[in-house]
């Protein structure tokens, strides 16, 4: 019998492996070919999750917004209430910092669970597993996107009440926003790969992660300004995977300035580092996932 017309010879070989990478180029090709799977999955996952509550999506934006208000009050109280001069600036800094941090944090926490909750999909279909955390990152991005107009809205309202505050209008530096957001996303995705792998082997990684996230928030330049660190203390900023990007974010949105070279270097290094290390861990072990789920 002759093979059917749409038959395209495609030979696959499955062999034993020892924590080594599968051929990288074919893997990336497969990943790219099936990107629409990740996109649809994130869309459907949102649909499934928020089918019952229409408020669900709103809540995701409202949560960091309310949190920002709480932190703002805390910070101004601690400072002793010199809100007249820089109140709105402080609020703006906390707000954009939190929104950005939540983007990364949503990538990581949702992505870390994506494999262990992938269950049957992983047991019954062969596809590059990295598509699952990738799908979580897409969801996180879609949650992040509407927070930008919310931020701008809050600032415009604030400007009406405190016209004296220095918050930049449109500045040329805003052109850097997409790049910085992309770097946050890549860092988040890379770390999600790392923690997703860990979560397969240690099922309480997720619980641990929720504490890590909280501490990480306080260690990040959100409730404090990057400029408060001097000398060797600045290491704390660059040792934090989100330090340079958050510092750059504040620079762009609050100061209206182009991020500094060291911020760029730090942000790029962390993004590339997380993606490479997380990617290596994940992809070299993903063929094990089906056995361990």
């Amino acid at each position, binding site marked *: *019998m*002759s*093979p*059917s017309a*749409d*038959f*395209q*010879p*495609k*030979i*696959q*070989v*499955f*062999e*034993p*492996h020892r924590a080594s990478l599968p051929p990288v180029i074919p893997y990336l090709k*497969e990943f790219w*070919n*099936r990107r*629409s*799977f990740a996109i*649809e*999955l994130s869309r*459907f*996952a949102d*649909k*499934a*999750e928020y*089918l019952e509550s229409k408020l669900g999506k709103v809540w995701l934006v409202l949560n960091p917004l309310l949190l920002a208000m709480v932190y703002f009050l805390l910070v101004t109280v601690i400072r002793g209430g010199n809100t007249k001069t820089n109140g709105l600036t402080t609020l703006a800094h906390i707000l954009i910092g939190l929104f950005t941090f939540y983007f990364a944090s949503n990538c990581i926490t949702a992505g870390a669970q994506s494999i262990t909750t*992938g*269950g*049957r*999909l*992983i*047991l*019954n*279909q*062969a*596809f590059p597993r990295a*598509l699952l955390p990738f799908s979580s990152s897409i969801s996180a991005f879609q949650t992040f996107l509407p927070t930008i107009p919310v931020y701008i809205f809050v600032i415009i309202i604030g400007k009406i009440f405190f016209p004296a505050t220095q918050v930049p209008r449109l500045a040329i530096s805003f052109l850097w926003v997409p790049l910085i957001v992309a770097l946050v996303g890549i860092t988040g995705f890379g770390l999600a790969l790392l923690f997703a792998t860990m979560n397969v*082997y*240690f*099922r*309480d*990684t997720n619980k*641990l992660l929720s504490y890590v996230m909280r501490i990480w928030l306080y260690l990040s330049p959100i409730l404090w300004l990057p400029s408060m660190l001097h000398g060797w203390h600045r290491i704390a900023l660059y040792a934090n995977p989100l330090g340079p990007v958050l510092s750059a974010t504040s620079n762009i949105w609050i100061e209206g300035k182009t991020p500094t070279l060291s911020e760029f270097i730090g942000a790029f290094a962390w993004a590339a580092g997380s993606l490479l290390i997380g990617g290596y861990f994940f992809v070299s072990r993903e*063929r*094990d996932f*089906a*056995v361990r789920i």
Partner: protein
Amino acid sequence: MPEELAVRIEDLSIKYKINVDTKRTLKNAVMRASKGEKVRMRTVEAIKHLTLDVPHGSVLGIVGANGAGKSTLMRSIAGILPPTEGRIIVNGKISTLLALGVGFNPALSGRDNIILGGLASGLSKDEIEAKTEAIAEFAALPDGFIDMPVRTYSSGMYGRVAFSVAVNMTPDILLLDEALSAGDASFKEKSFQRMRELCSEARTIIIVSHALATINELCDSAIWLHKGSMLAKDKPEAIVDQYLKFLDVGTLPSNFEDM
């Protein structure tokens, strides 16, 4: 590998490592490490040194008792489980319908699940959207259930959609694990029809089933798996006979001693 082969399995062994101890958590790992204990692992050899060639256009049946390793073998051919030893070479696009059902998300509708499954198996969005209608039609769920969440389905309805997805992907190699068990009589007839169609289109099909009549009717060769080893490969009638005898009397065929 020779042109005419769809699947070649060379000396395949698959082992599962099972952690016998408590849950795998970071906490337990740290506790154990601090006490200097080792993790106790049990190894299950689900497939033992199996060698098998499946030519293009053939329909292979697999029979065997529970836990014989049938599903494990299917998963490894699909590329889901990596071999522990040996090698599997697959020539062609695979579509799977494995035990436990496809990866349907219970909160989503049947239609959404069809789209997701298609995308996961590597179809483009246009391709799967073109197929969705045909798949939904083939499944023929009553009363617009195709647009209801899958969690509201009966297991037969679930099986119908899963089967429709698998056979409508125009695969070169179709893997069916217990796929025909859940449907009612009318759907069974329809699915047999579809399978015969696929056979005549020179697709390669591998069927795992406990319904031995299915194996007899559809397959042109069969193997008997027993505790991870292939006991026999023959015409389906012969295999089914031997297997039935074994189920009755509990004796393995005489040639087992040679293996």
